[in-house]
């Protein structure tokens, strides 16, 4: 989504005040670390068109194919 403002990550100190058990916070943190570790292999790769731009292009191509087939 291009029109959504990204909210910064939660601080551990803020989470600690929510009353959520430490064990759950730790489990969530460990899951996040694992997933973001996989993501880190994708950094510094070349960027191209956005997802929305790609699909807008595919939609135009599809429309042209439909017109030709008719």
């Amino acid at each position, binding site marked *: 989504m291009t029109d959504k403002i990204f909210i910064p990550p939660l601080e551990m100190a803020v989470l600690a005040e929510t009353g959520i058990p430490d064990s759950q916070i730790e489990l969530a943190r460990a899951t996040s670390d694992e*997933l973001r570790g996989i993501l880190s292999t994708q950094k510094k790769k070349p*960027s191209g068109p956005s*997802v929305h731009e790609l699909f807008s292009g595919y939609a135009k191509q599809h429309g042209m194919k439909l017109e030709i087939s008719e």
Partner: protein
Amino acid sequence: MSFYQSALDIAAESRDAPDSIPARTSAILSALDGLGRRLSATRFLDEDFSLSQAETQATETDRSAPLFGVPLAHKELYGRLTPAGPWPDEGGSSSCEGQTAHQTAFAISQLDKAGSIDCGRLVSVEYALGVTGHNEFAGTPKNPWNPDYICGGSSSGSGSVVAAGIVPGALGSDTGGSIRLPAAACGLVGIKPTYGVVSRSGVFPLSHSLDTVGPLSRSVADGAAILQAITGFDATDSCSLEVPAEDYSRNLDKGVADLSIGLCEDYFLTGSDTDMADMTADSFALCQTLGAKGRAVKLSNIDIINPLNVLMIATEAAQIHRTVACDKGHMLNDQTLMRILAGAFTTAEDYHVLQQSRARAIAAVMEEVFDKVDILMTPVWPFALPTIEASDVGATPDAAPLMQRIGHNTRPVNFLGLPSVCLPTGWDKNGLPVSVQLIGKPYSETTLLQAAAALEREYRFWDRTPDLDKI
């Protein structure tokens, strides 16, 4: 009223005898209140509203609407405003108890225009964030084929009620497999449309980038008709795209002789249990027997897509629901809370990389797969369906790996934004349905439905119905 009528048959009957619409609607509301609740699948009924819609249709002089008089019920995430007030919009969660819809969902408005009768709302997994169907607050729907087993999630109530034949179709939502997993678990056709084809406006959100909405139905033709009704550009959904209108049903009788179908041994078959992989290979062979060209394909980097999709869902769910998670975390199911919190540590840079990775993966799959074949065939569930009891893992350390494993074959499709149709092809070792998934290039829903209809004619799964006396 007989159960298991198709939507298209009901529409034809309603045109011939519009007086039948209120009686049928009334019978279906009774069934949703009885059998639907015994299945723990019915969430909300509004008899006055549904019957008033039915009465209006019965006096309609123009009966040409494609779903004229067809009763449907939908996942509880779909908003509805009525003259008597809004319907509940609780996202299957006690944390939203008492919350009501602020608009009628775009897809629901489209179904109204298509002549359908809205018969209420069906149980969803809390926040649509779960693949097994467990919901401590709203109830865990039972699988009509065997009530000890899960329906899958998160559109679990939709799967249960359609498989029980109460309504011919229901809308679900799919962010990582939530239409296809319950459709497959319940022996139904599930359609996840291409990114941007169906607006999500008015649907309780989980992930802006990945949420899609679509139907679960007992037949391919019914699914195509419901999909046809709900498509259309909607400027209020920033992911909605202006896609040329087409008739999704136009090739249902065409067969597969003009199609090429790919099988990706790595990841999809090797990542599924042998019996699931073998049944998919059998369906692939059947397509070739029917005249399709079969071809082995390979996908690079596919193994990282599932975890990246999990991270994308968690990140966007945390963006949307973090305030509730922090303020009312004690009211959330432990697993929901854990999965939302897992996204709360994502940085803006991570998110940027995630979106870029998604775009690169889409471009790669177009080149590696869809430049070579029209359709990629995969299993849906990677293993035989578990029981409700065995899959109730809560927020234990076993939960995250189990969730990732269940979505092994479905989540990549959301990340790639592609359309997908699943349909039942047989039975697992415990007598529960098994399905294949047909994945296509963007906006190829017509082609996927063409192939699904050809397979449906061979398997004739819809001839079979569960024994509801056990429920």
